[in-house]
């Protein structure tokens, strides 16, 4: 069976149209990015507000006891916050595709639209490709838009530190351009596979959302100082997710066929 991109694009077109008319889902998708942008801006603002506050130095020393006496504690903390928040920010490209793909695959079963769809010439692979695209594209657009807002917000608030813009920096650009697509692919792949096995979108969403927990756990570890996140750490994380993506792709090709998709609702 040949892969016909026209049919995959038809699925993409339909899902995208459907998403645009789904205010509940759009709202759900907007909530997380909003938090992920607004919270760090507020945190940065509290550090910048009074750079001579002696408490700042105390907090900074907690993170790094070797901090030189003449270092600017405020700036140190802002940089530290942005580094930690980076991991948190990457939850977004995982989470948004989970929301969309659960709806679009298990949702088709739930609303009984999958059977007419599978009775058309579209192949299971084209279906998954179209649906994945319809979830990856919005997820990355949202992530990138949120990133632009974050950069503008942080730079405006941190301007008084007076050493030029703090964002974007190389790490963040690497994260947004390389890690985010890998993470999005991961979230989508998990959601699609789970959606294929369960009957309801809500169930698929909940199970798939569980996979975000380890990621949040890692970030929590970072903030608490157990993990020392840095470029190497994130590069390793990227490599691991890349391997997981390949595994998911392999599993999807093997596990998703017409009969399995249709039989799982009896």
């Amino acid at each position, binding site marked *: 069976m040949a892969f016909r991109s026209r049919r995959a694009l038809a*699925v993409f077109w*339909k899902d995208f149209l459907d998403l645009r008319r789904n205010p509940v889902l759009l709202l759900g998708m907007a909530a997380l990015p909003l938090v992920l942008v607004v919270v760090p801006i507020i945190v940065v603002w509290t550090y910048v507000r009074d750079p001579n506050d002696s408490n700042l130095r105390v907090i900074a020393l907690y993170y790094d006891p070797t901090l030189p006496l003449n270092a600017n504690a405020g700036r140190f903390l802002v940089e530290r916050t942005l580094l930690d928040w980076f991991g948190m920010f990457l939850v977004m490209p995982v989470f948004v595709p989970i929301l969309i793909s659960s709806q679009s695959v298990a949702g088709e079963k739930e609303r009984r639209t999958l059977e007419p769809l599978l009775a058309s*010439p579209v192949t299971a692979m084209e279906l998954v490709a179209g649906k994945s695209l319809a979830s990856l594209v919005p997820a990355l657009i949202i992530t990138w838009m949120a990133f632009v807002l974050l950069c503008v917000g942080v730079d405006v608030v941190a301007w008084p530190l007076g050493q030029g813009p703090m964002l974007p920096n190389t790490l963040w650009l690497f994260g947004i351009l390389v890690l985010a697509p890998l993470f999005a692919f991961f979230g989508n792949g998990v959601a699609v596979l789970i959606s294929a096995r369960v009957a309801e979108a809500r169930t698929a969403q909940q199970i798939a959302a569980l996979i975000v927990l380890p990621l949040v756990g890692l970030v929590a570890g970072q903030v608490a100082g157990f993990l020392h996140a840095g470029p190497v750490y994130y590069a390793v994380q990227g490599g691991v997710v890349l391997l997981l993506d390949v595994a998911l792709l392999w599993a999807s090709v093997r596990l998703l066929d017409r009969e399995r998709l*249709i039989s799982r609702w009896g």
Partner: protein
Amino acid sequence: MSGISVQGLAKRFGARTAVEGLDFDVRPGEVFGLLGPNGAGKTTTVRMLTGLLQPSAGEARVWGHSVRTDGEALRRVVGLLTEQPGLYERLSARDNLRFFMKLHELDERQVWPRARSYLERFGLAGRENDPCGGFSKGMRQKLAIVRTLVHDPKVIFLDEPTSGLDPESARTVRDAVAELAAEGRTIVLCSHNLAEVERLCTRVAVVKGRLLAMAPVNELRRTGSALEVKVEGEAERYVQALSALPFAPNVLAEGARLRVMLADEAQAPDVVACLVGAGARVRSAVPAQRPLEEVYLELIREGRV
């Protein structure tokens, strides 16, 4: 090769056999009924014939395409109306149709006029741009029928097209199906509704886990026969005697009339003799056609549960 040919088709889900031993042919231009109660395996059969499920045994060809090996080619020539209309409710009627045109890689500008002519005939013209979430059940079902037609399929499978509809919508959907039949389309209609099959189909297969009977609708009605006997006085009192006959026929008594179901016309003289023996004064005894419902119910009772 046109038409449908089914040989020894069976589907098992684990240990459970949904349907087995199906053999039938559907000729081009025919409206073929698959009649059977809920759980008889109609949907399973249609799913096998549209390439959605792989048969566990047997083979079927639809317009020459094997359901086992030519799934994609098969799906290009069939149209399936599923039990639920399965429309995208947030999308307009038009976008629902456009999606399927795209899936069939058709040029919208070329096929839209035909789709629109069906929308007009089914009373949906003017609603193309409304989200179909706001449509009534009957409208949805008719839109779903138009959707099964966008690629001008050789054969359409209609799975219980009127179940769950109110009588009024059911009638408009039936009229729509009758129009398609009048166009000479090949249709396989699944139903548990006798009147519907009787009105729309030329030939019918009665199924319940397996094939119980297959005949043109009016011939099926003649399967077995009945004898209508008029006696003097209350007919009721002879029911007992008749039931004691070796072939124990089903008997209905109403006033002075008896309706005796026969497997064979050769049983008629025994019935009359029995009545006379029981002291009945027989005024008349005429052969009658059994109502289709009776034939159907009897077949279903004989069929495996």
